[in-house]
């Protein structure tokens, strides 16, 4: 079978199916990642000594161990203590926790980069601490942390491929199955790889647009 017939007859459908699952994984994980990132960062900056320490441990664990091990623990390990997760659930939880830990570092840096004086000015206007955090600190934190968090989203697109290792059939998984069945590894993975490259390129463009949209003169976002 030639390259093209193989691609259209056999490869196309699984690749589309797999891409859909991959997109699902990504979209389900992005918001929880960001939420967890904010909660952990807030816990570290505004929380008590013990809360701050707990958050540090959280970040230390999820940044110090491979994502794959975290997924294995969630999917293969938890059943031994009675928790049975679906492959996709385990993957999404793993991505959210791990990505959240990374995002929390960017967000924490952003929070700490905002001068103390702004909080004081907000308080002196009569805002409560919470209001000040929501209306003054957060809008600025968001912009400062955006490059780092955008980075994380791009990583998420790539690392979603690991969901296959816990039996979630996303793009990589579908590809591997077809490839091993027909012994056409190079061809299959060139196509699959192309899809990832397209996804990553589109995402990078979109996120750059988002950054531009939120840009405020004087509120420099530092690129790492």
């Amino acid at each position, binding site marked *: 079978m030639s390259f093209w017939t193989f691609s259209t007859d056999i490869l196309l459908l699984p690749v589309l199916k797999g891409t859909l699952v991959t997109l699902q994984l990504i979209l389900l994980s992005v918001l929880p990642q960001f939420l967890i990132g904010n909660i952990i960062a807030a816990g570290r900056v505004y929380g008590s000594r013990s809360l701050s320490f707990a958050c540090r441990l959280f970040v230390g664990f999820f940044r110090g161990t491979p994502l794959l091990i975290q997924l294995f623990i969630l999917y293969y390990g938890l059943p031994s203590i009675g928790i049975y997760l679906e492959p996709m659930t385990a993957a999404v939880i793993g991505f959210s926790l791990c990505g959240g830990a990374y995002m929390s570092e960017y967000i924490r840096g952003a929070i700490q980069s905002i001068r103390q*004086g702004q909080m004081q*000015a907000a308080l002196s*206007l*009569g805002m409560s601490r919470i209001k000040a955090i929501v209306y003054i600190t957060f809008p*600025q934190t968001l912009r400062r942390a955006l490059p780092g968090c955008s980075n994380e989203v791009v990583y998420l697109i790539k690392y979603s491929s690991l969901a296959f290792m816990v039996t979630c059939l996303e793009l990589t998984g579908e590809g591997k199955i077809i490839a091993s069945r027909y012994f056409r590894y190079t061809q299959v993975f060139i196509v699959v790889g192309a899809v990832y490259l397209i996804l990553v390129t589109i995402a990078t463009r979109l996120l750059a647009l988002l950054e531009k949209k939120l840009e*405020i003169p004087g509120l420099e976002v530092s690129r790492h």
Partner: protein
Amino acid sequence: MSETKILKVEDIHKRFGDNEILKGITFEMAKGETKVIIGSSGAGKSSLLRCINQLTPPDRGRVWLDGEEVTHHKKSISGFRQRMGMVFQEFNLFDHLTALGNVMIGLTRVKGLHKAEARKRALHELERVGLADRADLYPAQLSGGQKQRTSIARALAMDPDLILFDEPTSALDPELIGEVLEVIKKLADGGMTMLIVTHEIGFARSVADEIIFLEAGTILEQGPPEELFLRPKYARTRKFLHKITELYGD
């Protein structure tokens, strides 16, 4: 006393580490008065202001705003702060909001006004300080003097009973100081109660009803400008006034 004092400060003590910065400050302010606090750096002037609006709660002592006690009332401190405006040396404008946004946010998020109303009021305040045409610029696009005038407008928008000024011109380039002092003078003429910490001696003389000289954590002398300048009671006062007039001019 027939009138309640707007601000009453009694026996304020504040210590930072081993250093006792404020050693028992007591004074009062009547409505419409402008008092200026002067003193050498580190004498505790800024700390005093922050003890008054509880940004840094004092270790000892009490503060009353228009008869109601402010100290030791953690829950209602936001309410009190709404009635005490503060203008900072480093402006502390909110970088993510335009000048208009900065003035509006207290009205919308603290006082709960509708956006349209808040906008109208905010523009009015910006006009008062001469910045109506800069309303849509961000802090990074404003000069130092414009930033400070915006922060004054922000404080004014809250309809405060009094405004605390913490060295409002110290961070400004010399040619920008004048525009800010002008605004403050206008406010004084308009009857606003103001407590100002500053080095601008000439300005202090012209705008103050009373000058307080803070030295080593206590009030060494206080009195109307002419009295303090022409007949200071203490040699230290005279020395300080002399030095500062030399440095900062008249």
